[in-house]
């Protein structure tokens, strides 16, 4: 009996996981277009960035880390020269706050699931909530 419950639980969990994965597909696809339009020149088509100038988006503590921090970063940009995982980059990243909530959710879902990254999706509601706190 116990075994059956465990099996059911495992199967349920796995299908939920699959569902979640397939479900982010449309957002990832839309996000790819946003990325190509607004981010690719600096972060490059493979997300590897430009040495010393623009950071990589592969497995950085920002890209796959705390979503609030990530949304804030992209909305505000920076000219403050903040070390990314111990490395400095000399270019400035302009605020991307002209993008709609959905575009930001999509592009962040895309970068969190590309270039070797695997992280949860960013939702429109999460972007909206953060935007309300960011000037």
């Amino acid at each position, binding site marked *: 009996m116990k075994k059956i419950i465990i099996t059911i639980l495992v199967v349920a969990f796995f299908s939920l996981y699959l569902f979640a994965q397939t479900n982010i597909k449309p957002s990832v696809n839309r996000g790819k277009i946003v990325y190509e339009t607004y981010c690719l*020149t600096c972060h490059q088509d*493979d997300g590897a960035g430009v040495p010393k*100038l623009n950071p990589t988006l592969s497995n950085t503590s920002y890209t796959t880390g705390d979503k609030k921090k990530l949304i804030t970063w992209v909305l505000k940009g920076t000219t403050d020269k903040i070390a990314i995982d111990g490395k400095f980059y000399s270019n400035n990243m302009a605020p991307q706050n002209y993008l709609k909530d959905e575009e930001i959710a999509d592009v962040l879902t895309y970068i969190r699931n590309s270039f070797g990254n695997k992280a949860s999706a960013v939702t429109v509601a999460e972007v909206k909530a953060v935007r309300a706190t960011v000037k």
Partner: protein
Amino acid sequence: MKNKRFYSMLALAIICANSLLACSNDTSSVDKSTTVLNAGLELPTGFSTIKAAEGLGEARHITVTPQGDIYVKLSSAYKDKTIYYLHDNNGDGKTDVQTGFGDYVGTGITIKNGYLYASSNTEVYRYKLDAANKVIDPSKPEKIITGLIARFQHDSKSIALDNDGNIYVNIGAYSNSCQEKDRSKGSMGIMPCPILDSAGGIWKFKADKLNQTYADGIRYATGLRNVVGLDWNNSTNSLFVMQHGRDGLHDLFPDLYDTKQSAELPAECMYELKEGVNCGWPYVYYDHIQKKKIINPEYGGDGKKTTTENFIDPVAAFPGHMAPNGLLFYTGNMFPEKYKNGAFIAFHGSWNRAPEPQKGYLVAFVPFKDGKPSSDWEIFADNFAGGPEFVSPGKAKHRPCGLAQGPDGSLYVSDDSGGTIYKITYKAK
């Protein structure tokens, strides 16, 4: 024995196949029937390359002494040191002695009148040399210039000296196009651009006076966004510089430029500077296709409107974003006659051409006659990236940065991605 034979045949076959591949894949303007592949580089027939050093990290500019020793400036410390003296003991072209000194990262390095000059991103130092052109006291340089602006973007200070005791220093603009908000879509330019007071030009100082600040120097030329490659031309007795043109015409003004135009424009320009000239940044850029100085969109331009102001024209123009990091006028006797007094340019390689294919990662040559370019530019040394699939800033195995001429007339090229120093020589058949 049999085995050894087999392997050397196999190696030969692979080399042949590789060079065939390199030939058929490349579309650059060099006549492939006359190029050779050497230490990974493609060069015209008769030239060969040896790696004088490898693994030095971010090898920026270089200078070679009359004894054939090399000094390299690094923009990131290698074994805790940022300048290296390299010496070749047995004359095979490969250096065997490496002596490091200096604790400041930077780009500029050159030798003049018994001194080695080297720069950090805010200061210029000099070291007295002995009769063999070795630094006498590596731990005690004289600080000749101090307090220069370095705000991350375009912060390297390249240097060149004339024959009258002056040193010229590039101070790059800490901005792309002097927008109110740097690199923000649609943000307009500040009028007049306040950056030009202390950056975005070439400053002239005395080569032998200590602790000079802005107040001691003069702004020799303005309207230059960022210069990394510069050289004093002894045949014209004037300073030549290579400007890194602005980025992002499409990203910032998508209604005026498509991605193809944005990859190609503006031209990377070579200027001959006379005291007081203005090259036009951030107000205008040079369009090498229309052959005109075009008003930047941040200042009301539309891709066509030309300027009526007194900005100088470039003496040579190259495709956009290739990033010229080294310039050298060749005065040696080793290379064929056509190279005499001509300009070699080390193109670091582009990133801002994306999503279009990247370009650069090569050393170009422009022949000169009577102090002016006598024909269009050509590729001299190619394939630093390591093959067409590596032509991108993150993937390139090597990125040309500095140039120097050896006492025998050989050409040295430094690479700040793989830390290689190439020595290129010529032998007539």
